[in-house]
């Protein structure tokens, strides 16, 4: 028997008393009473697995990327249009950056989805935040992909 069933939610300025109790302190979101039906999809499981698998691949890609960009051959100083042009001349680096882009964005996007699910308290907020997230993610992925594929070293 939960006492909440009996609580009057009138937060009147009248002094609270045994017959006029104040509202109890609810957590941000109380568990709904529904008994969950099995969702019958494995979406969350695949998401979870994807985080780990992509994570492992990303370790190689991202750390390699950082190494090249920031450490080898003089670090950031060397980076410039010419440097990029040189690298993307090779399909190897093109693929590398492409995979890295996709995996990192999907990994980060899915991670942020979890974060939003955790912290957004109202259903509405949650929905819109996720919409913004998906749009931004999709936009970034598409843009990045285009850039890598349509890159033209002779643009100048």
């Amino acid at each position, binding site marked *: *028997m*939960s*006492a909440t069933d*009996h609580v009057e939610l009138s937060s009147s300025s009248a002094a609270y008393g*045994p*017959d006029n*109790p104040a509202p109890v302190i609810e957590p941000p979101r109380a568990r709904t009473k529904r008994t969950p039906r099995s969702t019958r999809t494995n979406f969350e499981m695949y998401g979870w697995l994807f985080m780990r698998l992509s994570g492992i691949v990303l370790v190689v890609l991202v750390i390699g990327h950082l190494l090249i960009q920031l450490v080898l051959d003089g670090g950031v100083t060397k980076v410039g249009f010419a440097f990029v042009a040189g690298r993307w001349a090779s399909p190897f680096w093109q693929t590398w950056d492409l995979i890295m882009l996709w995996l990192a964005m999907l990994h980060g996007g899915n991670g942020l989805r979890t974060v939003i699910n955790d912290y957004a308290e109202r259903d509405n907020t949650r929905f819109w935040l996720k919409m913004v997230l998906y749009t931004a993610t999709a936009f970034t992925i598409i843009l990045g992909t285009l850039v890598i594929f349509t890159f033209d070293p002779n643009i100048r």
Partner: protein
Amino acid sequence: MQIHKYDTVIVGAGGAGMRAAIEATKRSRTAVLTKLYPTRSHTGAAQGGMAAALANVEDDNWEWHTFDTIKGGDYLVDQDAAEILAKEAIDAVLDLEKMGLPFNRTPEGRIDQRRFGGHSRNHGEAPVRRACYAADRTGHMILQTLYQNCVKEGVEFFNEFYVLDQILVEEDGVKKSAGVVAYELATGEIHVFQAKAVVYASGGTGKFFKVTSNAHTLTGDGQAAVYRRGLPLEDMEFFQFHPTGIWRMGILLTEGARGEGGILRNKDGERFMEKYAPVMKDLASRDVVSRAIYTEIREGRGCGPEGDHVYLDLTHLPPEQLDAKLPDITEFARTYLGIEPYTDPIPIQPTAHYAMGGIPTNVEGEVLSDNTTVVPGLYAAGEVACVSVHGANRLGTNSLLDINVFGRRAGIAAAEYSADHDYAELPEAPAQFVVDQVERLRASTGNERVAQLRKELQETMDANVMVFRTEQTIKTAVEKIGELRARYRNVSVQDKGKRFNTDLLEAIELGNLLDLAEVMAVSALARKESRGGHYREDYPNRDDVNFMRHTMAYREVGADGAESIRLDYKPVVQTRYQPMERKY
């Protein structure tokens, strides 16, 4: 005030209550009222095991078990009931296994069994392995398993509802149960539960002692509710003191510790039980061991600066065995005493443990209003009841058995009764008593504090009606309790609110404890013999001529409103075992 209507109402969701609920729910519309969430019940504290002559590890049969139960109870046991207990034990254990209880297993994959105090092969020849167990949390597993099955069966629980009164009505000159009155902790609301059948399974009453293995919530509410309505209480003088409670705290260290080979030692390191029980030694029955410990202490062989305890020595047992078989109690020693049981013996002293007496019932769980008359629609099972399978002293592991065997029986009997009977008419203002009680306490401006009275009660009980009793000490206790009862009228509570007013409920619980303590002391005073858990130094022998009979205590209210206790006696049912001297 709300009125609810159910076929069957069960008071208490410990082992007995939930075992009854599983049966009753299948057969009738059942509500279980419990002052604790079911899994908080004290059945969960039971450690050692549950007896049944499964003969999984060595030769055994239910007749030997019956004999041990009767002998353990110092022949005050009703032998027909003991036979049922031992016979149905086997199915009771197998039923629990089928419900999912994870018993420890033998190498062949069957339920493992271990030794326990007082359980013997062939009428006392040697200890036998009869206790089925799940590490040292058998009670925990029983409670969890039963709750799980209640979830499965969809049992309807009213959690944190305190039953405070029994509604008895008279129809055609017969006292009948019409339902119960309960107080909802969350809101302070009073509820009347009208029911065709009511089953009490509200557990023990150990909290009138200070050093006790019992929970704070074991305050004998069920016993007090029916006693107040004029029904008798049986054998209340018999209370079991478990030999091995943690020194000063009373937290129980299971007899299974000795079953696994643990040894009691005095300050000289001597295994003193050899003197008192040459055959069963440390595994003699509990009353014998508890007395032996106090004898050692009194004769100056107790341990510690004040010589007020002895040791339970497990140091010779391999740590792996302790980890596998006694993980919880070794942890108690570490947590509460800062002692490592692998290397150090544990200081222990006897602790108030189990009420052998209670609401008298027959073997179907039907409550009796005198030596023979049944109260239609009223049932009881578990520690609250007295069937009496434990007589003057309960054997270890027989209580978990009791709650399962007689819990089941009471559940079935109650549901069958409600199937073919009608509701008894509720009296006018059925909740009046509780309403008044609650109002009086809330309004009281008296200057007595609950905690103070309870403390004095516990101290006098510990000092005067513990393991050793004499006319003198019991009289002191009776007087003190009388004084406390008078002062109780002036008790007041600080919390005047409605929601979760545990202050108020502690006051009501104290009232119950005072009533029951008085019954206990008065019953003990009249029993001028020593038997089982009741040991009178002024009458050190058992007296079968005058006292081979159950005490029945009734509350009488005189014309002037003065209360008194009337004692009556009931014969013991004897079938095949004649009383003999009890030796271990």
